[in-house]
């Protein structure tokens, strides 16, 4: 076993840290307050190569491994999880999906500008009536010979407005239930697509989330990813990888909150001494540190398995469930350690706490991760 990071992994971690601490921090509070999309940061991170980190350089990607991706996601998320979810959706759902399962035409036309970050993508699986239960897809893609005709509504779509490319999951054969689900890649500008209003969210407020309506949208046949009926397997496989990204996001929220709590506890005085000298606070920090370290190890283990080409679905479910749950705990404790100051926006920890909550919900709730994990035990 070897816990050492390579020189390149350290360099990428440092690059992400530098960008986050130098640039993202500048306007993160303002973007959170006004729910404005971080367009300039998306552009800058694209230039640095963070929008398609793991894609083959042949298709404009960064050619880096999943471990590097975890390191980058942690560093970005310490400062700004709204930004890091944009990075995560583009990298591990959209680019990964096209890189792994797209054909040459789709890679040339859709993957290349997504991997370079010139464009960004969105992943459209959830529906008003299909969240945890992704099998009950109501969006229909009807075979019309040379194209499919799509009708239906997708819900909670991250990057819905800012994306140029959509990966869409829809039902092509309702009789076959989830075996009749198919995946597509398409332009967001296709006629017949319209967006619901920007969701006014509790956290991750500067990422744009909308519902997306499809009314007689024509999708060319060459935009189908894999065969008809492959869509559900496709979505589940992609989410296995995506969960590593969200797990690393949750990890970053927790480790960012821990860093702030440690700094504050050393500085803040009560009863004549730094609050860190009160053991009740020191022990809180200790508990938080153990949880963060565990979450980091789970994330890196899942990434390591993926990089080795081994099965990583259960490992990524464990990483996602644990990291998300402890992110909620650790950010809450960080607010507690900050006392009243923790409850105001200037000190960031209340925002980290609001953001942490989402990591327990999207890309599979904590309950759903436990279903995945327990099924693997009881098989």
């Amino acid at each position, binding site marked *: 076993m070897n816990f050492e990071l390579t*020189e*390149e992994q350290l*360099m990428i971690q440092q690059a992400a840290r530098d960008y986050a601490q130098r640039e993202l921090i500048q306007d993160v509070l303002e973007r959170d307050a006004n729910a404005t999309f971080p367009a300039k940061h998306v552009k800058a991170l694209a230039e640095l190569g963070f929008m398609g980190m793991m894609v083959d*350089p042949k298709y404009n990607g960064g050619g*880096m491994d999943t471990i590097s991706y975890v390191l980058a996601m942690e560093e970005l998320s310490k400062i700004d999880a709204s930004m890091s979810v944009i990075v995560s959706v583009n990298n591990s759902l959209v680019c990964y999906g096209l890189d792994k399962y797209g054909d040459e035409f789709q890679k040339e036309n859709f993957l290349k500008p997504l991997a370079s970050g010139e464009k960004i993508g969105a992943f459209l699986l959830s529906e008003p009536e299909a969240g945890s239960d992704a099998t009950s897809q109501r969006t229909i893609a009807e075979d019309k010979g040379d194209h499919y005709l799509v009708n239906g509504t997708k819900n909670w779509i991250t990057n819905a407005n800012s994306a140029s490319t959509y990966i869409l999951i829809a039902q092509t054969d309702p009789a076959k239930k989830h075996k009749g689900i198919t995946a597509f890649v398409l332009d967001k500008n296709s006629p017949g697509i319209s967006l619901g209003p920007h969701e006014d969210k509790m956290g991750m407020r500067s990422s744009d989330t909308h519902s997306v309506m499809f009314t007689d949208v024509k999708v060319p046949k060459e935009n189908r990813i894999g065969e008809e009926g492959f869509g559900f397997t496709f979505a589940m496989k992609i989410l296995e990888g995506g969960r590593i990204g969200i797990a690393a996001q949750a990890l970053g929220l927790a480790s960012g909150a821990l860093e702030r709590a440690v700094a504050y506890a050393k500085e803040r005085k009560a009863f004549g001494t730094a609050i860190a000298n009160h053991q009740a606070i020191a022990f809180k920090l200790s508990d938080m540190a153990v949880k963060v370290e565990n979450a980091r190890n789970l994330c890196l283990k899942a990434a390591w398995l993926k990089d080795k080409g081994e099965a990583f679905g259960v490992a990524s479910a464990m990483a996602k469930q644990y990291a998300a749950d402890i992110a909620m705990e650790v950010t809450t404790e960080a607010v507690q350690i900050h006392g009243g100051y923790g409850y105001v926006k200037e000190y960031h920890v209340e925002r980290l706490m609001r953001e942490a909550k989402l990591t327990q919900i999207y890309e599979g709730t904590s309950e759903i991760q436990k279903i995945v994990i327990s099924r693997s035990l009881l098989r």
Partner: protein
Amino acid sequence: MKILVLIGNVPDTTTKIKFNADQTGIDTAGVQWIINPWDEFALTRAMELKEAYAGAISSVVVANVGSSQTEPTLRKALAVGADKAIRIDAEAKDAFFVATQLAQIAGEYELILAGIEASDYNGSAVGGMLAELLDRSSVSAVTGLDLKDDKLLVTREIDGGNQHLLCTTPLLAIVQKGIAKEVRIPAMRGIMMARTKPLEVIAPVESSYATSIQKLELPPTKAACKMVAEDNVKELVRLLKEEAKVL
């Protein structure tokens, strides 16, 4: 024109510095190493110039005197965009030693950039010594650098203003941080390209040390800061008189 940027390998500026047992050096256990901040600004400016005058500047090379442990720092310089790195394989114990080592490779570069100091021992000596050893002109405290035809436009900060010089090459410029606005973060593409860029290791020449560190000392610890309410001048005067004993 070929540019050489001297790269010091120094502890990260947030490191809590501890000394070794006999107090003649820094305890390097657990230290994270970075490019000396002044050198990083110099490298950034060199890259900007190369991009702005692609025809006139053929390459940017970085050089360091150090053991193999300094190679990650050199590879970061390659990732940021340098074309080639040279490491002279010897421990960089004092400025004269370092300058004599660099002198063996530096002569062929029309422009050499050295940081005005290094954030480890802040010696501020290598640049000047190297210019002397190479017998070439040097300008210190450079805060601006540009190309003008085949000459260099150099800005120096002087007391109360700036001095603008037109310099011929070859030149050694000893630079301040203001030389570039913001240091660059290496991009993924650069990190990947650094894998295949040359990192040449050269044997040291016979040289000697001009100095040796007898003892390092930490500054006295700062006393805690006391806040006095803005309308309480009386208390401030009392504190200055009775506690700080400066009045």
